[in-house]
């Protein structure tokens, strides 16, 4: 059982998350009870890492060329010969299913004069460069050298495609551009244990939205790594959200935040009823009919968890659904695996990924995937819906309610980037909270290690 944080000066007033878990109507697993706080101190974070070209170039070399990173899902390349292209900064990786249970990744460049071998995903029986026709097998052996007599120096064995490290977990395919990268399992640490009960491989990509943002990729992802912004950025939900009662835990290369719902924000100066909390969770307007009623003796948490279980049971194994706690059904549980992969836990379907937009250091790609359970045959994954830098995320109708939440987040993200340049005239760093911004501090703890290697 997690320790009670009541009366601690360095935690918010109100219920601790451990106390909220004690009210759960279902079994709460040990991983949920486990607290693993970290104290990274109170120092400012220098802001030039977000604004300077120098740091972008350094990140390319020290992070993106080194680290394990989420490239695509297994379902994107179900058949032998299916390919996917994953771009990171100025680099491109070609991922190929080469066997029923074998996936290879290659630097996506022709060994003749360097053209991209493939421009986009698709099925292939061979990897033929569209420029002069150098051709490799799916397995990476050089098969065809046009005018072979003219390339006496080309030895086919030496011109095989270089195999990049590939890591697979929960239906996610990770790659690294570093041939000497640490083993994938070591890098993941206990993350797979945390997701053991969520059946990530038995999900399909129901929606996939990629929004181009006018801000650094770190500026973008940091908008999704704490609940501290909820009261100001998403005020309407705090009647039923314990924003500052969130718990932040750190485990090796990943961190976890949990924000409880169906409990009032300690920021409120009034006491909402259970019904008012549920209405807020369901975004009910004053002028609208109630969607759900909290009967006498029941709580908003219980009602929301019950509805959530019913909904999930329609598309997933009901026994599995019963094995999940209320917390896993309704709370916001958002993990970050360094550097940019953000799968949500419990029955939340969200996965975020953030990366630079091409080689731009003040632009990024903010991707949201909905990974949903399904019954029967696996539905095909959704195609990526690109939304330009000057288009609204509200266009992402497939995200439903969440697009409106993102409309509030994206109102800030480019303005943070812009403001940081001016801030630098006054002070060199941004000021982070000690606890609620734990995930940002944890990120920089690892970031600094990579950058100084």
């Amino acid at each position, binding site marked *: 059982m997690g320790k009670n944080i009541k009366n601690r000066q360095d935690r918010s007033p109100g219920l601790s998350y451990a106390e909220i878990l004690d009210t759960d109507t279902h079994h709460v697993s040990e991983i949920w009870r486990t607290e693993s706080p970290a104290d990274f101190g109170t120092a400012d974070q220098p802001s030039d890492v977000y604004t300077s070209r120098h740091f972008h170039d350094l990140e390319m070399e020290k992070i993106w060329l080194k680290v394990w990173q989420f490239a695509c899902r297994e379902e994107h390349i179900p058949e032998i010969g299916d390919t996917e292209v994953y771009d990171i900064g100025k680099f491109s990786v070609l991922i190929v299913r080469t066997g029923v249970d074998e996936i290879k990744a290659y630097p996506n460049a022709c060994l003749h004069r360097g053209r991209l071998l493939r421009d986009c995903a698709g099925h292939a029986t061979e990897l033929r460069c569209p420029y002069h026709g150098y051709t490799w097998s799916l397995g990476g052996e050089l098969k065809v050298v046009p005018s072979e007599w003219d390339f006496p120096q080309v030895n086919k064995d030496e011109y095989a495609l270089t195999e990049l490290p590939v890591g697979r977990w929960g239906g996610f395919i990770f790659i690294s551009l570093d041939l000497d990268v640490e083993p994938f399992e070591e890098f993941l640490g206990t993350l797979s244990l945390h997701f053991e009960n969520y059946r990530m491989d038995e999900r399909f990509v129901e929606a996939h939205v990629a929004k181009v943002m006018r801000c650094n990729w770190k500026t973008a992802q940091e908008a999704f790594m704490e609940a501290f912004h909820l009261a100001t950025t998403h*005020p309407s939900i705090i009647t039923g959200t314990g924003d500052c009662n969130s718990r932040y835990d750190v485990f090796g290369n990943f961190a976890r935040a949990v924000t409880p719902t169906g409990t009032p924000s300690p*920021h409120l100066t009034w006491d909402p009823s259970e019904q008012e909390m549920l209405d807020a969770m369901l975004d009910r*307007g004053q002028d609208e009919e109630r969607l759900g009623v909290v009967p006498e003796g029941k709580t908003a948490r219980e009602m929301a968890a019950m*509805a959530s279980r019913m909904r999930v049971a329609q598309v997933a194994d009901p026994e599995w659904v019963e094995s999940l706690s209320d917390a896993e059904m309704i709370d916001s549980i958002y993990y970050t695996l360094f550097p940019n992969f953000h799968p949500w836990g419990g029955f939340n379907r969200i996965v975020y990924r953030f990366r630079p937009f091409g080689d731009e250091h003040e632009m990024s790609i903010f991707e949201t995937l909905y990974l949903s359970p399904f019954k029967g045959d696996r539905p095909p994954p959704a195609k990526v819906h690109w939304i330009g830098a000057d288009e609204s995320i509200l266009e992402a*109708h497939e995200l*439903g309610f969440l*697009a409106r939440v993102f409309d*509030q987040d994206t109102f800030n993200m480019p303005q943070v980037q812009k403001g940081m340049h001016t801030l630098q005239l006054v002070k060199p760093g941004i000021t982070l909270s000690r606890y609620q911004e734990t995930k940002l501090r944890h990120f920089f703890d690892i970031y600094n290690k990579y950058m100084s290697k």
Partner: protein
Amino acid sequence: MHQMIHPLTRATYDAETDEIVKVTRDGKSGLYTRNGEYISGELKQSVDPEMCRWVASYVEHKNAGVGASARDRAGAFVAMKEEK
């Protein structure tokens, strides 16, 4: 159209359209843009731009036919209601 009471200030935010929000506080009202900029009316003060966006985006999505998906939290309650 989508009327909500701000949980912190207790002002009422009501989207007239997907661009215009009526804010009412202490019996006075004013019209504001979806970014919280003052347009007209008796109530002229700093209002919450995020709350304006929230109610305005509701109208925008409603006009576009985006309803609660069966997999959203609200969708789950809609489904429960329909089953009854």
